[in-house]
């Protein structure tokens, strides 16, 4: 490793060293209250994102482990911005809940560090390490709400199932290594299909990898943990789990897919079935769910089915559509969980969907953000969700997965029902009893400025990208390798 490689790793260094310093500062500097610590954490994340976005390093790979070219920078930027938004959305929440003082923002930053490593990985080793760094931080964050037993339950459930899936992932990586003798991401994936088809060991390795990845991004049938964990975990943490951690895994998954070159081969039918079942399961299960966080969990499962569909098409048409979908998904899903966090009181997180009734007129800002995020998740214009869905359906059709696209469209239209149920409850239903909403409204916490900033950013992004997506399409199209299909 030389100096220019160290320069190139600047965003990662910020994300890695920042939380260590933050932990020390929390321990040794008196007078730093929770709010200040959160702001410092947010500033670190912002700095990392800004550096990743603006600083173009002289080398595009560091140590044979991490990409520092456009793709790696995008991963670092995504990690920084997700951490920033998560921390902003947590400022009010952590002031009401005992999530820890300096531990909370540092853990979020550690998770973001893991995200950046994972997303920018160019070696199977950095895939594994990034994923583990991210996952370990998530175990702790999920269980960190010490006042709430459900939080601990969410943590242990995620940990137990996660540990099993990690073991599958490790074994899968080992088999891939045995089959190819190469730990570099591109080399090993190319080696797997070098003879034209998968060898038995390589194929077994991919089967194991699919289990590990399927768990992290909650694909059928490895998705069952999601509703419980989402319901029990602290809302902003779950928002991060649902967006940042999944997005980073997808970034690595896409690299694996593209490195194989041209074709999924024997894997395609399995992925096809997983995508279809994930879309169907998530959307149908969400229809009659009443708990808002569980609803968002099923919604998130369904969304992952769409991403998998885009990934399936990626070797043929390029990954741009999938990356756009991910970016948009991060914004809208994080926004939704942010609203849930902002509506959560000292004692409990937002629960039944009925408790949203009539809030649209009592808390206009949060309700409007929620509505925008729901409309976007439902894929309706003029939001970014529409553009993103359009892109992936188009990609799937272009790659020849017409039936999968039809399943996707049908389930997406079914999904409009449950997303708009939230909007209907916010705006079109009167409170359960006269006056209840008014009093319930005053019981809900006030909106703080950090929340306002995060909401403004998210809403503006969703609406702007819905109307003027060209810039993002160009940007991501360029990162994904220019002329790879999304924009000619």
């Amino acid at each position: 490793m030389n100096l220019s490689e160290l320069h190139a790793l600047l965003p990662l260094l910020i994300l890695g060293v920042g939380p260590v310093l933050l932990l020390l500062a929390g321990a040794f500097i008196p007078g730093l209250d929770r709010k200040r610590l959160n702001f410092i954490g947010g500033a670190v994340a912002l700095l990392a994102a800004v550096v990743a976005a603006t600083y173009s390093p002289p080398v595009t790979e560091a140590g044979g482990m991490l990409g520092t070219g456009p793709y790696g920078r995008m991963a670092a930027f995504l990690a920084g911005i997700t951490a920033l938004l998560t921390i902003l959305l947590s400022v009010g929440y952590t002031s009401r809940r005992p999530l820890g003082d300096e531990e909370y923002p540092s853990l979020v930053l550690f998770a973001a560090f893991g995200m950046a490593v994972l997303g920018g990985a160019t070696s199977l080793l950095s895939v594994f390490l990034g994923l583990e760094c991210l996952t370990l931080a998530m175990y702790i964050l999920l269980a960190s709400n010490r006042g709430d037993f459900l939080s601990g339950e969410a943590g242990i459930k995620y940990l137990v199932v996660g540990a099993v899936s990690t073991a599958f992932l490790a074994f899968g990586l080992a088999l891939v290594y045995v089959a190819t003798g190469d730990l570099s991401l591109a080399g090993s994936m190319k080696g797997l299909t070098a003879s034209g088809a998968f060898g038995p060991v390589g194929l077994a390795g991919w089967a194991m990898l699919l289990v590990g990845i399927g768990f992290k991004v909650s694909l059928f049938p490895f998705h069952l943990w999601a509703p419980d964990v989402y319901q029990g975990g602290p809302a902003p943490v779950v928002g991060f789990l649902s967006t940042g951690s999944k997005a980073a895994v997808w970034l690595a998954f896409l690299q694996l897919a593209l490195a194989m070159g041209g074709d999924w081969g024997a894997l395609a039918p399995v992925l096809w079935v997983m995508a279809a079942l994930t879309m169907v399961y998530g959307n149908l299960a969400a229809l009659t769910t009443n708990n808002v966080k569980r609803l968002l969990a099923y919604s998130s499962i369904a969304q992952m089915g769409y991403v998998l569909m885009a990934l399936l098409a990626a070797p043929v048409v390029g990954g741009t559509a999938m990356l756009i979908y991910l970016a948009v998904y991060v914004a809208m899903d994080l926004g939704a969980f942010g609203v849930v966090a902002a509506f959560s009181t000292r004692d409990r997180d937002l629960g039944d969907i009925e408790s949203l009734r009539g809030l649209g007129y009592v808390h206009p800002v949060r309700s409007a953000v929620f509505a925008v995020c729901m409309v976007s998740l439902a894929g309706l214009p003029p939001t970014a969700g529409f553009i993103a869905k359009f892109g992936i359906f188009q990609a799937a059709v272009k790659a020849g997965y017409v039936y999968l696209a039809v399943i996707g469209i049908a389930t997406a239209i079914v999904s409009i029902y449950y997303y708009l149920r939230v909007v209907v409850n916010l705006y079109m239903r009167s409170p359960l009893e006269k006056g209840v909403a008014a009093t319930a409204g005053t019981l809900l916490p006030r909106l703080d400025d950090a929340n306002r900033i995060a909401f403004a950013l998210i809403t503006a992004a969703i609406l702007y990208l819905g109307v003027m997506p060209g810039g993002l399409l160009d940007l991501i199209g360029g990162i994904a390798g220019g002329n790879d299909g999304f924009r000619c």
Partner: protein
Amino acid sequence: MVPISHILILAGMIFALGVVCVFAHRNILMILIGVEIMLNAAGLAFVAGSMRWGMPEGQIFVLFLMAMAASEVSVGLALVVYLHKRKRSVNIDDFNEMKD
């Protein structure tokens, strides 16, 4: 030298034993032990790969694997202790307050 396939078969068997351990037990500690067995099977496979290709990378990976397994278990045990205080149980299925 031992043929690579033999080592892989052994690793596969150890992995399967770990899976059975995870599958059969409801005790969180036993599940974590099962996970350790599975991870060790992965480690064995990595070493086998290293041997097959004559490269040290696989062995490096095993070192990381061990470190990672240790940290995962430590977080897991901390969580078990914390939850045990609340529920007086280490049976994973006793933690079922959330369900559909």
